[in-house]
């Protein structure tokens, strides 16, 4: 009896200590992931001096935030505004082409028969699995030989080729759309195009949104492609523009101390501004994305 109770107490103790170790590990990782973000949000509310002397986790003031904001958007006569506009044009332009081109392609690969279908499918799969940066320099060399470098098209068109999006729509159309439904629409007199536009496409709305999400986030965050393709600052998207700001920050580049120099809190603000659209999309599409993913996956 007493042996049993001490046994169970030891098991209990072991369970308790396992659980607390697990809790500590998870909490440490929460700190690891969260501290930089919290610090960043606080840093933009401080002056350059306060950033260095004050407690890293104290808040600054509204007026300092406004001053940082003015310094950021005053940089090189409003270059930041131009960069954000460029990012929007590139990311949205590529997004529209990706959807217009990719969704019908996924449908055709899944539900129609044509010569070269298998080859195109394998190509899609292979390119999807190689990192997108692997093709950047080859694409640069190609576009350079036809003189397209520096044009917005030199980033929009390569970004529009989005095999992962085609793969997602392909999987969805081939697993989750009942063929009988499409056959019924045909019997009712739908043309082949109407079968796609009136039946298949509306059903695929969640997956189209998912493709749009991935495409937008990837395009907005793309660094290497525009960095290579666009030589002039006027054409930079905001991610590449960050390098200009970094180059003008004396704390990281002592030779840059001049009239148009950037202070640390301003650089921190630039970091936040550069990801705001993506953060926005992230926060507001969480629930919807989860719904989309399960809608695509449950009927296999």
């Amino acid at each position, binding site marked *: 009896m007493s042996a049993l109770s001490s046994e169970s107490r030891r098991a209990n103790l072991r369970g308790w200590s*396992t659980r607390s170790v*697990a809790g500590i*590990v*998870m909490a440490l*990782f*929460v700190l*690891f*992931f969260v*501290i*930089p973000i*919290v610090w960043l949000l606080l840093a933009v509310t401080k002056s350059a001096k306060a950033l*260095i002397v004050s407690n*890293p986790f104290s808040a600054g003031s509204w007026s300092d935030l406004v001053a940082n904001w003015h310094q950021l958007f005053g940089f090189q006569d409003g270059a930041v505004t131009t960069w954000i506009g460029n990012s929007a044009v590139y990311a949205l332009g590529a997004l529209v082409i990706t959807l217009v*081109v*990719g969704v019908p*392609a996924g449908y*055709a690969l899944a539900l129609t*028969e044509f010569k070269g279908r298998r080859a*195109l499918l394998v*190509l*899609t799969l*292979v*390119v999807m*699995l190689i*990192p997108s*940066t*692997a*093709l950047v*320099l*080859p*694409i640069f*060399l*190609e576009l350079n030989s036809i003189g397209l470098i520096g044009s917005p098209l030199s980033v929009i*068109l390569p970004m529009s080729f989005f095999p992962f999006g085609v793969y997602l729509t392909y999987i969805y159309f081939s697993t989750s759309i009942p063929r009988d*439904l499409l056959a*019924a629409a045909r*019997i*009712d*007199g739908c*043309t*082949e195009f109407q079968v796609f536009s009136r039946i298949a496409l509306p059903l695929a709305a969640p997956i189209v949104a998912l493709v749009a999400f991935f495409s937008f986030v990837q395009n907005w965050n*793309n*660094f290497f492609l525009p960095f290579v393709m666009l030589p002039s600052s006027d054409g930079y998207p905001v*991610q590449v523009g*960050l*390098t200009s700001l*970094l180059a003008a920050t004396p*704390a*990281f*580049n*002592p030779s840059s101390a001049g009239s148009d120099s950037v202070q*640390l809190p301003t*650089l921190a603000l630039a*970091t936040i501004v*550069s*990801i705001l659209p*993506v*953060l926005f999309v*992230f926060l507001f599409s969480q629930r919807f994305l989860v719904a989309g993913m399960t809608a695509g996956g449950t009927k*296999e």
Partner: protein
Amino acid sequence: MTIAPPSDQLTAGASERRRPARRNGRSAGRTRIGYVFVSLYALLALAFGVVPALYAVVLAFTNGDGGFAGIGNFTKVLGDFRFWPAVLHVTVYLVIWLIALVVFVVGLALLVHAVRVRWVSTALRFVYYLPGALAGASSVLLWLFVLDPTASPVSGLLKAFGFDSFVAVIQPGHLPAIFAIIAFWTGAGGWIVIMYGALNNISTEVIEAARVDGANAVQTALYIQLPMLRKWIAYMGVMSLAAGTQLFVEPQLLSQASNAVVPNDYSLNQLAYQYAFQQNDFNGAAAISLLLLVVALLLSWVFVTRGGLFEKE
């Protein structure tokens, strides 16, 4: 959902009778629309997938005047004094990053999955996932601050390790670990969410059976859940390995921010960039890109052909 109004019953019957003839017409129509629908995508795939790869092959085997160069460009880049150090840098980075990824992602996914309280589990996944919104240059920039002891939120920690200045933190020996930390910080959360989803797919009966047989949580994780995650772990490993060989933005920004304490030819992609933009040697750049592309293609090929990964158990 209403698919066909009742009045269409008659026409439906009519088409039923004429079926054989219509079938052929229909399937031809379907083939035609197939071509129309994939044409633009096929064009993009050619222009930005196949042609650049082939053009890189051509450039890699020719010289500046367009004459055949054999393997001249490859011996040139392999003999470059910067090439093998770059390979070493990327390799050390990959080893650290992949080990960290496998150990911590799988560990955290198992831990979070074991959390009974629903909102805690959801909140944990969200917090781990959130840094994923800061990708590329933004996350590197943020980490420049974190690694600079004058402004860092963890300056106490940095100083405890004896790092008093930014330059002391980013010494060459530390760089692979630093890049691994940055990559882990941005990317791990996405994988944790994926692993968590995979754990959810393990049937509760299996877990229950193990528990009835007397397995505790740790044993269940080691002998049931871990083997069932194997495919996803392999997937994560292969994808991350391929992506990691492409290291560019992290050393590029760090090189810029450190007044070249970090060299601007630290990684292979940077070296290829130097060839193209500093030396105007497109053939050399093509040779390096091709080597990287071949590595990526091999990894992806292994994956597609041995792809039992996406079959059902």
